[in-house]
Every structure is written in C-alpha cells, then in structure tokens.
C-alpha cells in the first residue's frame, strides 16, 4: 500500500513518514504542492495525505488539479477546523479530513478506513486474538472456550480493540468510536470502561491482552 504525504512542515512530515512506514505502508513525501502534484501524477498511490496550507500552490489548488485526472482517495489535514473549511475540502473531492492537532492513532485509523473502502475488503465476522474470539453477528465473546458476558458497551469497546490489533488507541479515539462523543469531556470515562473490560477479559486469565500505553492510551495485543 503506497501513501503520498504532502506536508510542508518538516517535523510533521517526518513523524508521519516514520509512523506510517512502521505501520507497514510505503510512504513518499513531498514538501510542496508542485512536487506533490508531480508525484501524484507520475506514480500510483493508494492514498494521499494533503496538508491544506502549503507554500506556492495550496492544498485546495492541488485537490482541484488532481480531481480531473487522479482518483486516489485524499485525506486533507487542516489547522482550521471551521465548518466552511471542512465543507470546502469535501466539495473539492476529499474523502476525509483531520483537524490539527490530531493524534497519530486517529490518523492511522482514518487511513485504514479509507484504504479498506477503496479495496471493498470485507471485514471478518469473527475476530480472534490469541485465545480470544469475538463473533460480530452473534455478539458473543469467548476466551479459551469460556463464554464471557459483556455489556453492550464492553462489547463495542472490545470490538474496536480487535479491529485495530497492535495499534495504540487514544482515549479521544475510543470515546469517539464507542460513544460517538467527539469532544473532550474532561472525564476518565474511557479509563473506567477499559478497566471494567479488562476485569472480564484479562482478569481470570494469565496472559493480558489489553495493555496501557503510558500517557497515550491502550493497545490490544497478544504480547510474548
């Protein structure tokens, strides 16, 4: 999977390249709109991450130029979160947007969503991690052959974890995906929910599956 990152800010460009490469993508970067447009025309990319505020020709212009020839999905990155700005981007043909500052986990989740949409890849009905099994349709969870009763909320939370195995999920992302709470509510709701899920999933078993990433959030993984 090849991703093109068009971003003029060096540090931002570097961490995105590093993070996306480590997540298993092939990443090209461009630090201005002209180069970005050139790369986008010359190579085939599965996804383009486009910063709106670029020197020379800005992100809107890049998008307008690309719209005619290139049908690669675009996620635009903007520092201005106004509704008008977002609408403008989506009207110009962008597939998604992220308002800076955003967490890398959020970016990764959006990237994966876009790529899945492009390939029409079907999600598996049964998700597994080590000896844990989650049946999406029957809404059943088993670990080591043992049935675990989860509340709706706990089930949704575990479902989210299993859809992103090995990825760090921030509290903001979890609140947004599980409860559709897209703002900071100044609470430790996510921590409480994860704590309760852990008691049921990891409590009775030797191998922990849900790990705390200090400061950042949580990760679901069968560590050695």
């Amino acid at each position: 999977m090849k991703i093109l990152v068009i971003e003029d800010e060096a540090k931002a460009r570097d961490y995105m390249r590093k993070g996306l490469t480590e997540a298993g993508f092939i990443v090209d970067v461009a630090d201005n709109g002209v180069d970005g447009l050139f790369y986008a025309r010359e190579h085939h990319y599965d996804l383009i991450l486009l910063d709106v505020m670029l020197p020379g020709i800005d992100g809107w212009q890049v998008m307008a130029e690309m719209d005619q020839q290139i049908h690669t999905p675009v996620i635009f990155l903007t520092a201005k979160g106004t509704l008008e700005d977002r609408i403008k981007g989506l009207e110009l043909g962008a597939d998604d947007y992220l308002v800076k500052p955003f967490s890398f986990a959020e970016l990764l989740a959006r990237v994966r969503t876009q790529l899945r949409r492009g390939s029409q890849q079907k999600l598996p009905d049964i998700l597994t991690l080590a000896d844990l099994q989650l049946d999406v349709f029957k809404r059943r969870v088993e670990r080591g052959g043992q049935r675990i009763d989860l509340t709706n909320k706990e089930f949704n939370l575990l479902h989210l974890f299993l859809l992103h195995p090995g990825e760090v999920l921030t509290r903001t992302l979890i609140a947004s995906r599980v409860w559709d709470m897209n703002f900071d509510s100044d609470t430790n709701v996510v921590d409480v929910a994860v704590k309760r899920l852990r008691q049921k999933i990891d409590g009775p078993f030797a191998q922990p599956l849900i790990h705390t990433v200090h400061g950042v959030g949580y990760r679901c993984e069968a560590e050695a």
Partner: protein
Amino acid sequence: MKRHSLTLRLSLMLSVTVIVIFSLCGYALYHSLATQISVRDDAALLTRIDQIRTLLRDEDAITLIQQKPRLFANMLGNTESLLVLRFPGQPPLIVVNPGQRPLPAITPIPADQPLTLSSVHHLVSAGGTPFISAAALAPTRDGNGQIEIVTGRLMRDRTQTLQHYRDQIVLATTLAAVLVAAISIWLVRRALSPLRSLAAEAEAIDVRHLARRMPGQAQAELEPLVAAFNQMLSRLETGYQQLSQVSADMAHELRTPIGTLLGQTEVALSQTRSLGDYQALLGSNYEELERLAKMIDNMLFLARAEDASQARDEQRIDLASLGEKLRSYFDDMAEEKAMRLEMALNGELQADPLLLQRALANLMANALRYGDAGTPVRISSRILPSAVELVVENHGPTLSADQQARVFDRFWRADASRHQGSSGLGLAIVRSIMQRHQGRCEVQSAHGITRFTLRFPQPA
C-alpha cells in the same frame, strides 16, 4: 466619496431657498409694476388723443395750426413723442417726429368711437425699446372732413425705470442669499458645537480610558446618540476586560503544562537513562501535550461560538434517546463513584445535536465530579410552551453566591487548587453553546443541592 459637511450643505440649501423665494417675489413684483406702468402710459397716450380731439373741435384750432404749426409742435411734442396731424390723403399739418421714425401703419379709430386701452398698439422700435402708438380720426367744425391724429411714444424712460427696478431686485436677492449663507454657516456651527465637543470627548477615550463616558447633559437630539454610545462603551469595556482576563488566564494555564514539559525533558536529557525512563518521559510528555491540544480545541470552540455567523445545524432531537446515549457513556463512571444516574429526559428539542450533547455531557461530568458519593445525579427535561428546559442536579457542596456568579467563567474552578482532569472550560463551553442557541444557562445552589438549568427557546 466624502460627504460634504453638514454646515456647507445647510447653508447652501438655505441660500438656494432664499434665491428662489426672492426671485419669485421679484418676478411677481416686477411683472405687476410693468403692467401698471404700461396701462398708465397707454392711458396717457389716449388722453392726449382725446385732448387733441377736443382741441380740434375749436373752429380756430385748424386755422391756428395751419398758421403756426411750430407752436403746436412745441406744445404737443417732446423728444420721445410722435405726433402727426393730417387730413387723409394730404400732406400732414403737423409732424413731430424727432426720432425720424417711420409712421406706423395703423387704421385710425373712427371719430364717433370712444377710445379704449385696446386702441393702443404695442410695437418694438428698431433699437428694441417698446413703442406705443394710436391713431384716431377727429371731426372738424369747419366741415372740411375729418382730421387724422397719429401719435406714439417711445418708452425709453419706462425701460430705464424697469431696468433699474430689475437691477435692484437682483442685487437684493444676491445680498440676501449671501447674508443667509453667512448667517446660516454661523448658526449651524454654533448649533453643532455640542457635536464637536462630543467628538473631542470620544477622542479622549482609548484602550486605557475605557471607563470614561460621554457627558450626559447633551441636547435632546443628541441624547439617544450619547446614551447608545455610552452603552456601547460599557459593552466594549466589559468585553475588553474579559478578553484581557482570558488572555492572562490562558497564558497562566499554558504555563503549567509547558513548565512541566520543559522541566521533565530537561532533567531526562541531562544524563543517559534507561529505555523505560525515556518511554515514561515520552508518555508523560504526551499527556501534557494532549492536555494542551484539548485546551486549544476548547479555546477555539469558545472563540468560534462568539462568532454569530458560525453555521449551526439544528434538528429535532429525541431527548429520551440522547439520555440513553449519555447514560451509557457515564454510568460506569457514576458507579465507580458510587453515584446513581437518574435519567428523566423526555420529549423533543430543536437544537444542534452535537452541541446539545456536548453541553449535557459537560454538565453531567461536572455533576459527577463534584457530587457526593452515594447520591444521585438527576437529569430531567421540562417542556414549556415556548421553550424546553433541561436540568442537571447533583448533591454536593453548596456554591456560594459569589461562586455561582463565576461558575461559567473560563478557567474558573470551584477549588482553587488544580483539579485533576478538569480544564476549567467545561461550563464556559456550556454557556457559549446556550448563547449560540439564543438560550440561557443558570445555576442554583442551596442546601447541598446544585442545579444547572439549560433553557432552549423553541420556535412556536
């Protein structure tokens, strides 16, 4: 385009008015004078013909005329007059014609007809001066037939009189206009002097003197302006103070996490440390940075909320299902604190769903944070004729009147020491969300119960 000054415009308008009125009066007076003089002159001409007719009735008159024409000529004529006496078809007996003008061809009035003003013919001489003339026949005693009298008069003196009169009118009009202009400039200046002093007062008000107000004893016409201006100043002053306060508070709020970031990074980098230490540092840095990012988000949200042009997405919202969603979000947390959520939301509400959810979530987070263990948090709705009220109620420490007044301010926290996890912006955001909906938010706190009420006005 720069507008002309009020003074100039007023004095010009007054001057033009004076010119128009004077001109109309002058024209009317002139016309009436000209008519009167003309009638008088015509009558004089006819009188002369009458006199000559009378004279010619005397038997001797003709003889006398024939004998001494110059005497008559001198007696009857002057330099402006024309007088010809003749028997039709014969050389004239008397010709007084100092201007050597050609005789007007006028049919004489028959001898038995009286003379009227309409018998006078108005002509214009070669030089443009009006010339009046009349002709009449007169019987003679000696029966030699009728004698023709042709007379006329060049109206040079009349023209002069009227010319003079006209000049005087023009002069008077001009003088009046100039005088009116000058007087009105002076008057308007004088009348507008309060405006100038107000301008001077206004000029003295700047950022450092926002507390100053315009003097109240203004003219009746200016009073509304002064009042409105002072009200605007009050609003500006309040806004400015709030803004300065917010800037100061924000700088203060930024200082704490940035100080932590700087300090712990500096200490960590001062010597080589284990991998675990670096990970812990970065994790801690992430926490502080996330807090900063959230604060910026919230500050931006508040800044935008004050921009009325911001688009809002209002929908009909089912309160019961919103309540379920919020319960699902908060019930674990409530349980952790040994508190209960009593959800009594019913009915529908017209509002922006995301903003409404955010306002309620902030109030609930607040209620759970400050509520006492073992007590309920009750969330209820009340449908009024033209509004919907949402109430979030918790049992906990009573807020003093002073605290109640400040509870919606940015960065204000009930306990002075930094409360973990609280940005101090939650209730400020609630207030701004209510402002966006043209609604109100209120707090009441008494006997250990604190109640927040959100009032959403609803379209009838």
